[in-house]
């Protein structure tokens, strides 16, 4: 009896202690942004919460719920929380209504919280904004309020604007999680201007698309859009404004697929579909590949649908399948997908390719449907191949459920060669140097060869080069004091230069030139140069015949020589 009383008191105390607390973060937002409303139920588990009143000018969208049980100091404490996204439509101060929940048999309520919404000018007074129709509206319609998870349902969105100032039409984006469009960019069409609440909206765009709910549960469809429009409410000439539009939430209940009657081959397709299969070629030898092509089409989405499988691949060795979604389907609720798979016959007794099975859930009739392709006739010739010593590549496990998606490869045991990240080889100097040096060798060899060939075909160039070099070297020697002290050597050097230069100028061999022939040579010399040449020849004669040191100054002789050389040039 005592134990019963204690238990009763404990239960009563826990029910009494259960509370529901609402917190809003942040409590002030700019128009276009959202706040997060968190409802925490402590002292008990609330399975659901419910608004006690409708929220005016606010869109509440359920985000998440959590439950937790903690044991602190031997006391069990239970709590649950619910998160909502609160999106205001106009500036102002709004009360987020109280929520109620049932804990045990007792109803608990939260307090309303206030959300302040600032407009672009930082003003939180709605003034005319709420009284006059807005310059742009986003409206969403759907023909259904209850769909199955994975079912495609139509969504039509309507954008009405007084004066749209955008060349690129933006697409409304889904705010609600766990919902996706069937098309990345929905098709749209422009409708004629429409009058609504006394306001003429010149730009009316209709977006028609399909959406798929992926998780069961209750949710609100909310779309948002940023537009630039002309606002004529406060200025007759209009003022350009950037608006963040949010649609009214559309409640949708997403039902889970029934577990009863779910076929073994069901892979998640929901809708109404057709299937066809072709096998090419229809005559083949053992080991020749055959292409099995399967086309799936119909109302619903096939994005994640794998290739239909037969009950068994006996007699065939199937390879992995490829698939391609046909994006040319213009109807947003419909899709087409093509699969191809190479199969290799291994049994000469085969007469048919196996029938393929494809199961889907039909939401209209609320039942599972299994499609079967007729067995494709095939004629196989040849004898069975001997077993490969290394073994054939394994086919799929025909006993288990078929799956054409490969498995994730596991990790590697060894890290390999762990090293600091190196720059690419092509940027390292030593690597560039290898072909660089060979390029240099090629260029040197090429230049050298061209020079050799040039000299071979131009002997005058060889002579000119020889005379130039000999003149340069001899002149350098003549300028040394030792050479100038030796009269015979000095004169011999001058004569050598003169013979080589005059021989080149007259195209005669230098060795055959005498003093007289040099004087008689048909040279275009100035009087000064000719006199200098005569002096040099006289100096040579004097040196050779007298055998004594000439009286002439070496500098004078060198000046004469330079004068003659300049004239010869």
């Amino acid at each position: 009896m005592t134990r019963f009383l204690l238990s009763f008191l404990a239960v009563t105390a826990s029910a009494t202690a259960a509370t529901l607390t609402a917190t809003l973060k942040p409590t002030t937002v700019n128009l276009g942004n959202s706040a997060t409303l968190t409802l925490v139920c402590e002292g008990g588990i609330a399975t659901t919460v419910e608004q006690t009143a409708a929220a005016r000018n606010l869109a509440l969208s359920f985000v998440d719920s959590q439950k937790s049980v903690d044991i602190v100091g031997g006391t069990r404490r239970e709590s649950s929380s619910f998160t909502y996204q609160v999106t205001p439509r106009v500036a102002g101060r709004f009360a987020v209504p109280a929520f109620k929940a049932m804990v045990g048999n007792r109803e608990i309520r939260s307090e309303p919280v206030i959300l302040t919404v600032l407009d672009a000018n930082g003003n939180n007074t709605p003034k005319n904004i709420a009284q006059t129709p807005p310059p742009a509206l986003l409206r969403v319609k759907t023909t259904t309020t209850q769909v199955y998870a994975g079912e495609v349902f139509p969504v039509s969105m309507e954008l009405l604007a007084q004066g749209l100032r955008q060349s690129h039409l933006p697409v409304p984006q889904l705010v609600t999680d766990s919902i996706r469009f069937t098309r990345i960019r929905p098709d749209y069409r422009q409708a004629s201007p429409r009058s609504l609440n006394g306001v003429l909206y010149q730009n009316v765009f209709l977006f028609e698309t399909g959406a798929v709910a992926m998780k069961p549960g209750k949710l609100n469809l909310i779309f948002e859009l940023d537009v630039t429009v002309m606002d004529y409410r406060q200025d007759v000439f209009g003022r350009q404004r950037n608006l963040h539009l949010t649609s009214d939430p559309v409640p949708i209940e997403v039902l889970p697929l029934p577990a009863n009657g779910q076929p073994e081959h069901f892979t998640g397709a929901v809708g109404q579909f057709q299937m066809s299969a072709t096998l090419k070629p229809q005559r083949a030898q053992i080991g020749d590949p055959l292409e099995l092509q399967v086309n799936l089409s119909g109302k619903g989405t096939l994005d994640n649908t794998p290739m239909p499988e037969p009950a068994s691949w006996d007699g065939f060795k199937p390879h992995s399948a490829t698939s391609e979604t046909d994006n040319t389907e213009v109807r947003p609720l419909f899709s087409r997908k093509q699969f191809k798979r190479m199969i290799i016959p291994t049994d000469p007794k085969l007469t048919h390719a196996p029938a393929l099975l494809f199961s889907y859930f039909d939401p209209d009739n609320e039942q599972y449907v299994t499609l079967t392709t007729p067995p494709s006739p095939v004629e196989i010739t040849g004898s069975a191949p001997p077993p490969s010593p290394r073994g054939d590549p394994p086919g799929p496990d025909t006993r288990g459920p078929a799956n054409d998606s490969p498995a994730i490869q596991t990790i590697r045991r060894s890290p390999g060669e762990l090293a600091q990240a190196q720059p690419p080889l092509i940027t390292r100097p030593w690597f560039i140097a290898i072909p660089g040096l060979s390029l240099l060798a090629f260029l040197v060899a090429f230049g050298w060869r061209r020079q050799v060939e040039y000299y071979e075909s131009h002997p005058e160039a060889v002579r000119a080069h020889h005379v130039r070099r000999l003149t340069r070297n001899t002149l350098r020697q003549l300028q040394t004091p030792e050479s100038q002290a030796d009269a015979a050597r000095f004169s011999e050097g001058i004569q050598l230069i003169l013979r080589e230069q005059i021989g080149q100028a007259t195209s005669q061999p230098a060795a055959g030139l005498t003093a007289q022939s040099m004087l008689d040579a048909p040279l275009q010399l100035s009087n000064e140069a000719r006199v200098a040449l005569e002096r040099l020849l006289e100096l040579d004669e004097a040196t050779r015949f007298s055998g004594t040191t000439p009286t002439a100054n070496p500098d004078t002789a060198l000046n004469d020589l330079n004068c003659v050389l300049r004239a010869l040039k």
Partner: protein
Amino acid sequence: MKTLAFIALSLCLWADAKDPVESPFNQGNAAFESGRFEEARAQYQSLLDRGQVSPSLHYNLATAALHNGNLGHAIYHLRVARTLKPRAMDIKQNLKIARDEVHHGTPPKAGTWERLTGFLNADEWAMLAAPLLTGWLLWLAAIYGWPEWRDSAAVWRPILGTLSVALTLVALLAWNKQSANDWGVITEETLVRFGPVEQSPDQFKWFDGTEVWIDRRHHDWFLARDVSGRQGWVHANVLLTPQS
């Protein structure tokens, strides 16, 4: 005394580095085997943070991320691993699985250039081109030095020349493509904005694993473009890119 202490410390570090059980790579493998993928990722990442790189390290990190449901991280590291070791089948397969997951079984096809040259990495192309180019240039240098060799194997010279020049061009282009850091992968669902500030209005969403090209950077924001041509600004926190 200081020298002795330094030698002792070096020996300890060396022994630690050689200990196969205690290395972060093996610790990451052990965590992966026991299903602690987040811890495995952290161990592999610690090696990357030290500047250590190997295809297996990127691959294991990506595989742990893939098991953990982090498709963006998985795709990024698999792409890096594929650049280092382009013919590894396990890398290719996991990358395909991750991309299939992101694109619902129909990922965008690789470009023509990638399909033609993607079986070798930039270093491999360079190693293929450099000896041929060097050999061809030395051969040319030799026949200019010794013209009597000009007629020997004259048929092969232009073939070798064309091949080496073509391979050099391919190596340069492969290096240019593979070392490009103008790509990235989104690592979590994010709003794509009109401008590079948090207050900028959003245009649309990108999901975990979306692969993008980067057109411009402004402080911590990237102007990125996806395969369908949609362009917008995303914060660096949600983008894994070689630039970050």
